[in-house]
């Protein structure tokens, strides 16, 4: 890396001219803090950024992007945390935009939306929304994550059964394109209209934010969005008891009621969820596998492994449908939905879990799905976990996708740690589609572990390609490597990328590798 050469010095000086010296750094020690992440795929995060910049506004971001175009250096953005590998520094002069100063939040309670900048967490949005009788989705990575990032990338949320895939909730968007232009979509395109509406004008550019992973910053930097909020029938402050990590949350019984019931097979559990979705009852609906219960519930390594090896959760919550009824309108709604649900359980042969299991789970973890999910506890098991299959598809395809993931798990266990055959089926949009996820624990130790994960990842992507499963691993792989299996989508994406990012400065290794495509002659010159 050319740390300290003339071009480096020039870029640094220009960044300082834009932001001021306190908001730009190129110190090697400071760069270390942006070098690893939860998966610690060292082969993806081995590079170091040369600059970290802290813009305060859309205009600051625009200036940085213009500079990047002038001096031809890569820029990526990363907010609160987890997946640094999606913007690894694999080229010289790479500048990371850390948006910590872009942390403004405004709630429009009358029109039920929140305007968020990149460094506003879900917990912040929720806390302000709940005060006003509103709620937004809970990211499965934990609500310390950026609300903006979660809504425009991945879009997985714990209450998506009711609130839908997160990207659907995005209204007006302010967006600095890689060529330095500012794009405002939806009603925001009209300076007087505000953020209330998402579509248009003309072709809806929000489509570029959707799909399984968003565009990972390769089509520019989103600096502000509005997200839709939903009615919250609970208290203005999340009711909690206890001291971390032994926390409890009990919601008002009249408006929140959990049911956990099991089935002999996963297929039967999925059918029950389909029936529930058809009835349009409930605020949250999941089929979590036993390991997820253990992940989110256990408060220490020791508790995790002793509980897992005792088969407690495996015995009690296998093929378990978990639903929380919400009284959006009133307590009477819960009473009505309660009757409907009991009828569905009866007709589908569901069996309630023992009360001891219910009490162990609901107040300590399940209710937290409204706020946080305890998602970060997934890293505890062996120091890391890995997502083998994460796919948003239909309930019909759930079993097929899961089996594909289990084949890989079986092949690599050990060293993959014991986890059964994890099967998280999460109906979205009242069951019209579903998140299907296979995560597994791994022991994050050394390069050997990394190599195993690398092999497993490559193997998984290969199988997903063969089976045409558009998993998140596929979507996070540059399209030039996977597009042929999916109707040559890489050619369309390359066209968009070239139009918006003529100098290929926006997170150039991700979404699509234009340099690699040019080398292989797939895309050349102005074509």
């Amino acid at each position, binding site marked *: 890396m050319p740390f300290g050469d003339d071009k480096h010095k020039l870029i640094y000086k220009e960044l300082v001219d834009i932001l001021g010296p306190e908001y730009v750094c190129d110190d090697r020690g400071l760069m270390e803090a942006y070098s690893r992440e939860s998966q610690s795929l060292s082969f993806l995060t081995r590079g170091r950024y040369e600059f970290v910049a802290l813009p305060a506004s859309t205009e600051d971001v625009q200036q940085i992007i213009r500079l990047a175009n002038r001096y031809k250096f890569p820029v990526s953005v990363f907010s609160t945390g987890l997946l640094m590998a999606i913007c690894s520094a694999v080229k010289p002069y790479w500048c990371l935009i850390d948006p910590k100063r872009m942390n403004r939040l405004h709630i429009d309670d009358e029109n039920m939306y929140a305007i968020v900048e990149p460094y506003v967490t879900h917990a*912040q949005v929720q806390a302000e929304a709940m005060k006003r009788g509103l709620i937004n989705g809970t990211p499965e990575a934990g609500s*310390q994550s950026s609300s903006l990032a979660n809504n425009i990338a991945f879009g997985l949320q714990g209450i998506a059964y009711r609130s839908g895939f997160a990207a659907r909730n995005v209204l007006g968007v302010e967006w600095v394109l890689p060529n330095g232009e500012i794009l405002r979509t939806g009603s925001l395109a009209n300076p007087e209209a505000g953020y209330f509406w998402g579509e248009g004008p003309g072709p809806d550019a929000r489509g570029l934010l959707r799909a399984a992973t968003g565009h990972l910053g390769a089509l520019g930097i989103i600096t502000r969005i509005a997200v839709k909020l939903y009615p919250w029938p609970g208290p203005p402050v999340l009711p909690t008891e206890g001291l971390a*990590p032994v926390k409890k949350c009990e919601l008002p019984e009249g408006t929140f009621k959990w049911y956990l019931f099991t089935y002999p097979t996963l297929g039967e559990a999925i059918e029950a969820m389909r029936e529930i979705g058809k009835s349009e009852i409930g605020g949250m609906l999941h089929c979590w596998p036993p390991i997820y219960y253990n992940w989110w519930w256990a408060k220490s390594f020791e508790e995790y492994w002793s509980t897992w090896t005792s088969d407690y959760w495996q015995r009690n919550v296998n093929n378990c449908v978990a639903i929380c009824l919400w009284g959006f309108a009133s307590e009477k709604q819960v009473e009505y939905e309660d009757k409907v649900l009991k009828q569905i359980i009866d007709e589908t042969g569901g069996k309630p879990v023992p009360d001891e299991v219910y009490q162990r789970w609901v107040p300590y973890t399940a209710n937290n799905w409204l706020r946080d999910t305890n998602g970060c506890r997934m890293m505890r098991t062996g120091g890391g976990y890995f997502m083998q299959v994460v796919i948003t598809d239909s309930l019909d395809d759930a079993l097929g996708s899961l089996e594909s993931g289990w084949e890989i798990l079986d092949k690599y266990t050990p060293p*993959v740690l014991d986890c059964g055959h994890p099967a998280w089926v999460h109906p979205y949009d009242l069951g019209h589609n579903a998140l299907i996820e296979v995560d597994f624990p791994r022991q994050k130790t050394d390069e050997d572990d990394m190599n195993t994960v690398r092999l497993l990842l490559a193997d998984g992507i290969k199988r997903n390609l063969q089976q045409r499963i558009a998993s998140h691993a596929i979507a996070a792989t540059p399209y030039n490597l996977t597009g042929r299996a999916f109707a040559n989508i890489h050619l369309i994406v390359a066209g968009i990328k070239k139009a918006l990012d003529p100098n290929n400065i926006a997170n150039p290794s991700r979404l699509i590798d234009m340099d690699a495509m040019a080398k292989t002659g797939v895309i050349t010159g102005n074509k």
Partner: protein
Amino acid sequence: MVMEKGKSLPKDPWHRKYYWDLRKNAWNCARCSVCKWVDSWEVKSARFAKICPSSLFYLFDAYSCQGRMDVALALIDGTLKYEDSPALLDIFYKCNMCGGCDAMCKRVQDMEPLRVIQEMRTRLVGDGQLLPLHMPVMDNLRKEDNMMMKPKAERGKWAKGLKVKDLTREKAEVVFHAGCNFSFDETLGKTARTAVTLLQNAGVDIGIMGKDEACCGCRAYEMGYQGELTKYAENNIEAWTNAGAKTVVTACSDCYYGFKHLYPALGSKFEVLHIVEFIDRLIKEGKLKFTKTVPLTVTYHDPCHLGRRDHVYVPGEAIMGLYDQPRNIIKSIPGVELVEMERIKEYAWCCGAGGGVKEAYPDFNAFTAQERIEEATATGAAALVTACPWCERNFLDSLNGSKMKVYDIVELVQQAI
């Protein structure tokens, strides 16, 4: 890989039962960023959602717990050398050592990131990587036995006229340790006097070391100076032993932490109590009765060393601290209404004075205190009550035009008797 009952389990025992290991802790950071924020369950507003003062003030990730784990790992593994990074000392020293990150991390992981930061500071000092801004304070400590840049001869002034046993000549069951701040800060010294009087009135056999008292060494330790901690611990333990004391009471939360959590490894077997424990006990036993009404709405600031840092880590167990005792005292004073701030107990915001920050980075120190004063103001309270002289002094110095009153809890008690 360990196979047990057909299960594939971690081969590294650390992943099955936690034990302290510097590198494993640093390596295990998952970059989840939980360390930067108040426990997500407890976020009550966007305004007061952060827990890490350093991350909020200095912004770059290196100035957060997560970043410090990465930098520590690079130093441990030798991929980063001291000479590679001019910012290196700032990375480890622009931290109040408040432990907010540590408590939040323990919510989701079996880790002790604060211990990593502490150990890295000790390592830096051991390797001669000294923060120049700390040197005057350390020089004064070595010469004058205090952290206040004051001559040792002035140490006993706070107790002038106080009729209490001099434990350099007499013996007592209980030794009251005033600490550097109460000893040299004339505004705060009255709190120490009141504390001693309260205990005497309750019939406690108590004495002080007066001008021969020495620093606890705890703050020096947190700056990385392990040797100073050992020196002062040995000195204090010997003095208390010679005085026949069984119990050490202090009104300073830094001293309390040092005596309770650092001294045992250096040979101390004394019972250690903070004054709030003693007062709470006296109220419950009926030995302290309030005779006056104090019509005041107050909010309580949990000092870090009295709260979440007063905790011996057992993975999975609640992060205990002296949270209830001060609140019990406040609630028992007639006329006083306690209103809580948003960030309390194990997820409390720091006053800013700890970890050598007050001595080296006054702007950061003041920012942290002002943030807390704003949070206190938002409750509608007229007074901010704490139980540590470092917090009290920092708040008093950072009021910046605010009309908020700042009291040590002992002062509040005194107003009611």
